[in-house]
């Protein structure tokens, strides 16, 4: 063979090999696949953005999905969206891991004697169709569902004469909805206009944790605080993130909420509110003096009097109840009293707006009785369980769960084979929200769009498609949706909806007081004397379901800094009385339930209360319902005794107190600014000096920034063992510091990008150096791992890779492709999201200009619901960040050490 022909053949074969490997195995699609290709085509290395809506809770925030090479790598809030305006909470940030979790069901499954076995879609659907033809009351129970899917389920149920049960949510806020139904004929959770209020009183409602939408609340509270004179009082019987952020926090005995409201209502009636209280109510309203109220609630009469005065003096007060105030036996009573106060003070229609109600069709625990009766009488035919979380929200002994096997066929729809789906005969995998078309209605008149950001990864189907297929409709789910939208929106609206991903059509809604509701008002129940255990929702887990995502446990609880595992919060007084230390195991006995848990003292927790977060317990105590059907999550503790040993609880904070080091200076503290001299030359920074300002007044410790940082920078999740050894990898953390009175301030701590960084001179190989833009650069590939930089960092923000951390399976898709790979033995830390800086600089360079203010926003600043973080160029005297560094509240942490850090904090205490 000749040399030339050899080379020709070689060339032909190798190009053929390259070409053939460019397709994926299934039907030879392109490797980079787009459902909706961007207009300019796919450019490797460039991200595209699409709209979606968060499915993590009923808040349904708008999402912008950042997609690289066909796979979403980051979720951000959708700017302008009526509920979240560009921000996300930590659960929203983490939601991407649901898309890629390895536990996703990949094909339909059928229960057989030997476990679940895959079946083809046709077979599964045929089996359901046949079962639907047979006798019996078919039932459809879903988790929170809004928008067009709800209409489709309605049609489906009409067609097969199935009963679409009200949706199951554990934290259903039924007391407030029931009270509103009784008082105002509106079974709804009204919205709040905080901007118009001058006083916010929240009773139990954990607005910054999980009540309605923490992003919306966080944003609104900051806006409200910009108005002079706004004051927020939070009253609770636990210690929540919400409480510690209020301007004033009061604690009362659990179970005395209705006493407090009776006292307030009496005050309002005495003074004469904006609207009179009808006689029907006056007749049944118990009288309660300050002294009686003080005894019942445990608050001092001084506090009560001041609270009353402040409340009466307010021109436009707003009162919100919920959370632990209503997840109680007397929850309805509390909600009714709150409704009456809202009425008398003229809040309804001004600060409290039924036009902004959450558009839910949630049921309550009484609806489960309906399910249970149908099941137990053997009437139940096909039972659909779609995204319910029934088995994780209820104890396994709950009658609705134990009766499930009596149904003729149980069909489960969901993403993973959770405890609920394990009870089913047929399991149908559905698309994740990011793989699917859809719409949401987070509150009345607001609509959000779901547009697929990637091709379905598995043989899952849209829930809508499954239902349409069962109905033997020729339409697809997408067609059905488009029809719905055409009917709902005008052409102009439709255009806006598709272009901005959301639309708002405000609804006006008045309310009138229903006198007959007076019959529902009961006499005051005595306040329980014994110790009570409360099951509480949390900012990390919500009602517990978000704990299914490992990131939600990797990021520590902001109040206790506990990351992995379950614990019992006890008050410091109780722990001192019993002589218990953090991590000591204790045995809690309730009526018919007991467990051992490690304890953690929680400053600010009332002595009468023990708290456990929802979603962390191995087994739930029995859950009963109150008169409104809201689950009772407060339990009388029968005994609390020391059990053997210590729990392996990772408490990440080394000290709850800042030890008088002025890390968060008190408002009167004056920082002595020292001039520091250096033997080294000043760095030359021609164009940029990146800096950050963090307003501690605005920071609520919600940890959304931490989650955003984890996802943006592919920070590894290392799990409980490493956390117990102190080897968490977080680049950004929330440090809570408690004072002697149990009051806490949060400090977000990340690399301070010091201009005279202690980490730099000690590195023997220049892996750490200062860039021309004032950034403290870490060159991963140059690092040999002496860890001297971490030792010498006064902020302790450097993270060492103790092991190789390779995400498992599909989770590798979450890696941000803009970052360099980190392997074992390397140091890493916050980079101020240098990949975003680089991108902005590239764009600016193409346009032959400098990067403008606001062009670079690191992931933490981008998501912060309260807008506490500002980033920019300190050399630009017009930049927002430069102006903020000149604030009177500005200070730097450990300034005395002369690190000349680029992160400036604004100390709390503006109001």
């Amino acid at each position, binding site marked *: 063979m000749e040399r030339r022909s050899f080379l020709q053949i070689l060339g032909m074969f190798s190009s053929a090999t390259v070409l053939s490997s460019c397709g994926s195995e299934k039907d030879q699609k392109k490797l980079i696949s787009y459902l909706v290709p961007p207009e300019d085509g796919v450019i490797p290395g460039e991200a595209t953005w699409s709209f979606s809506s968060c499915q993590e809770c009923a808040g349904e925030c708008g999402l912008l999905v950042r997609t690289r090479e066909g796979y979403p790598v980051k979720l951000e809030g959708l700017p302008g969206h009526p509920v979240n305006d560009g921000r996300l909470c930590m659960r929203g940030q983490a939601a991407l891991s649901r898309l890629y979790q390895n536990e996703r069901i990949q094909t339909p499954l059928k229960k057989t004697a030997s476990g679940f076995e895959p079946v083809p879609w046709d077979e599964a659907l045929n089996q359901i169709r046949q079962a639907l033809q047979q006798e019996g009351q078919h039932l459809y129970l879903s988790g929170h569902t809004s928008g067009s899917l709800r209409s489709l389920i309605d049609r489906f149920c009409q067609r097969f004469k199935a009963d679409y049960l009200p949706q199951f949510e554990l934290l259903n806020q039924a007391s407030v909805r029931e009270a509103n139904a009784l008082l105002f004929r509106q079974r709804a959770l009204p919205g709040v206009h905080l901007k118009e209020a001058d006083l916010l009183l929240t009773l139990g409602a954990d607005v910054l944790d999980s009540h309605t939408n923490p992003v919306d609340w966080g944003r609104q509270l900051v806006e409200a605080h910009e108005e002079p004179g706004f004051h927020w009082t939070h009253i609770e019987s636990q210690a929540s993130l919400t409480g510690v952020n209020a301007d004033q926090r009061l604690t009362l005995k659990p179970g005395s909420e209705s006493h407090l409201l009776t006292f307030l209502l009496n005050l309002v009636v005495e003074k004469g509110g904006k609207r009179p209280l009808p006689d029907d109510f006056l007749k049944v309203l118990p009288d309660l003096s300050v002294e009686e109220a003080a005894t019942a609630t445990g608050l001092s009469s001084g506090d009560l009097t001041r609270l009353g005065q402040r409340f009466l003096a307010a021109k436009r007060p707003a009162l919100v109840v919920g959370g632990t105030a209503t997840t109680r036996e007397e929850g309805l009573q509390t909600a009714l009293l709150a409704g009456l106060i809202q009425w008398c003070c003229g809040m309804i229609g001004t600060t409290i707006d039924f036009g902004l109600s959450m558009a839910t069709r949630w049921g309550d625990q009484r609806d489960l009785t309906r399910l249970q009766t149908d099941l137990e009488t053997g009437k139940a035919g096909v039972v659909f369980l779609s995204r319910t979380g029934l088995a994780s929200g209820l104890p396994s002994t709950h009658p609705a769960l134990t009766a499930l096997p009596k149904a003729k066929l149980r069909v489960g729809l969901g993403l993973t084979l959770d405890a609920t789906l394990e009870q089913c005969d047929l399991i149908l995998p559905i698309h994740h929200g990011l793989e699917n078309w859809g719409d949401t209605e987070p509150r009345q008149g607001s609509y959000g769009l779901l547009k697929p950001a990637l091709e379905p990864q598995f043989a899952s189907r849209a829930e809508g498609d499954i239902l349409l297929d069962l109905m033997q409709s020729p339409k697809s789910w997408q067609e059905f949706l488009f029809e719905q939208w055409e009917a709902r929106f005008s052409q102009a609206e439709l255009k806006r909806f598709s272009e901005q991903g959301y639309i708002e059509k405000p609804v006006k809604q008045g309310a009138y007081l229903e006198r007959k509701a007076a019959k529902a008002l009961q006499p005051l129940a005595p306040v329980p004397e014994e110790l009570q255990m409360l099951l509480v929702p949390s900012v990390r887990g919500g009602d517990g379901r978000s704990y299914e995502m490992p990131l939600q446990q990797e990021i520590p609880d902001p109040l206790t800094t506990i990351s992995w595992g379950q614990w019992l919060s006890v008050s410091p007084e109780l722990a001192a009385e019993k002589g218990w230390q953090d991590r000591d195991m204790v045995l809690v006995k309730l009526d018919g339930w007991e467990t051992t848990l490690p304890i953690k003292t929680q400053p600010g927790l009332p002595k009468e209360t023990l708290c456990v977060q929802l979603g962390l317990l191995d087994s739930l105590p029995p859950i009963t319902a109150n008169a409104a059907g809201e689950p009772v999550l407060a339990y009388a503790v029968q005994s609390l005794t020391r059990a053997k040993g210590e729990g392996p609880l990772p408490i990440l904070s080394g000290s709850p107190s800042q030890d008088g080091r002025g890390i968060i200076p008190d408002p009167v503290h004056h920082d002595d600014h020292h001039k520091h001299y250096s033997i080294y030359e000043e760095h030359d920074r021609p164009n940029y000096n990146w800096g950050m300002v963090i307003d501690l007044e605005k920071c609520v410790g919600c940890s959304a920034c931490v989650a955003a940082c984890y996802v943006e920078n592919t920070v590894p999740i290392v799990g409980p063992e490493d956390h117990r050894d102190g080897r968490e990898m977080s680049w950004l953390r929330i440090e809570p510091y408690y004072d002697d009175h149990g009051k806490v301030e949060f400090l977000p701590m990340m690399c301070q990008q010091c201009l005279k960084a202690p980490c730099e001179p000690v590195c023997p190989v220049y892996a750490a150096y200062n860039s021309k833009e004032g950034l403290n650069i870490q060159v991963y590939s140059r690092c040999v791992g002496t860890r001297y930089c971490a030792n010498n960092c006064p902020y302790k923000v450097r993270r060492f*890779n*103790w092991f190789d951390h390779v995400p498992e399976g599909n989770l590798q898709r979450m890696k941000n492709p803009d970052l360099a790979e980190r392997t074992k033995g390397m140091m890493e830390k916050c980079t101020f999201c240098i990949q975003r800086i680089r991108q902005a600089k590239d764009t600016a360079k193409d346009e032959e200009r400098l990067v403008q203010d606001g062009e670079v926003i690191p992931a933490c600043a981008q998501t912060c619901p309260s807008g506490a973080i500002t980033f920019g160029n300190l050399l630009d005297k017009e930049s927002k960040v430069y102006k903020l560094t000149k604030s009177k509240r500005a200070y730097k942490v450990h300034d005395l050490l002369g690190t000349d850090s680029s992160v400036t904090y604004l100390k709390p205490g503006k109001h």
Partner: protein
Amino acid sequence: MNSLDYRNQIETDVLAAMGRPGLKYLAAMGFCALLVLGLLACWGYQIFTGLGVAGITHPVGWGVYITNFVFWVGIAHSGTLISAVLYLFRQPFRSSFNRAAEAMTVVSLLVAGLFPLIHLGRVWNFYYLFPYPNQRLLWVNFKSPLIWDVFAVSTYLTVSCIFFYVGLLPDLAIVRRRATGFTQKVFNILSLGWQGTLRQWKHYNKLYLFLAAFATPLVASVHSIVSWDFAVSIVPGWHTTIFAPYFVAGAIFSGIGMVLTLMIPLRKALKLEQYITLDHFDSICKILLFTSLIIGFTYAFEFALAFYSGHKSEISQYLYRATGHYWPFYAIMVFCNGIFPLVLFKKSLRRNLKFLFVLSIFVNIGMWFERFVIIVASLAKEYQPYSWGTYTPSWVEMGITAGSFGLFFLVYLAFIKALPVLSMTELKEPHQ
């Protein structure tokens, strides 16, 4: 006995140690070799799995490894002190110790040099620490004390080796003269053609004096630089100007402790009582006592400095050392280094070898814990209260530490069999 007989006697006595190894010796070698194998196994496991198998963590990024490094470098110091400094000061009692002490210097430096490698996260890139020409124009950071360390320790090792070898030369020639067969051939090469001519002696003495003068400042400089690994940082408990003299005194103190630990059994096993006398031990104990006083003073002075600084983190660091999580170790270090050696003021105890042996073990333990307390306790409680934490060594670190002792004694035992343990020429000098 005329002097020729006496010189002959010295040769016979000293070289007797180089005879066929006994069972006990082989057993000791075997045990040490096992420990070294353990070290290699642990290190290999650490390299393949990641540094996480050690107990070091956040915020305590340096633990037992760096403790061992400073400990072994410290041990090395008394060798140079005895051979070079005492030579310059014309202290004749040094001749009975200097060879053994110099060997100890070289061996412990070899062991010490392992630890900066063992503690690296990516040891396969250790050559990044050397300034070598490369296409990427990468250079080392001469501001970093770790680079100073690289140079200080390698210089020290080089000079110690040369000094040790030069000192050996005349003795190697004696071995060559008295040996036969293969051994003779080996020592023929090793002794570099030493004939003992007057001209050779003239050059030799000049070289030896020069090397002694060259090595003497290293005693101060090397351990000062090791101390700057800590003092140059801003870590409370490390960042203090007294570290250099404090570390040098500590190094000499610990080195002499180790000399005692080695020489007391060695003297008995090799039947060298005639050459290493109680007077010699008496003299060397005076140095031990003196350095102990310096150390005791420093322990007290550190506290004074911390409180004088008025810096919250500094004060709380020293209180933490004495009363916090690591207080037992702090108590051990104060007792073993600052208090217990003071009994040497009593002359009879300075001449009681059994007691001295026990004391030397205490000194070794005390000095190891001193380094542990300085390194670990300082890192455990730095500026940021959120990041306070503690450290417990893992079995890998324990294994490597044990292995380092195994390596030290293995090489040292080999030295005893391979080379003359006392300087025969120097012992002969008074009788020339």
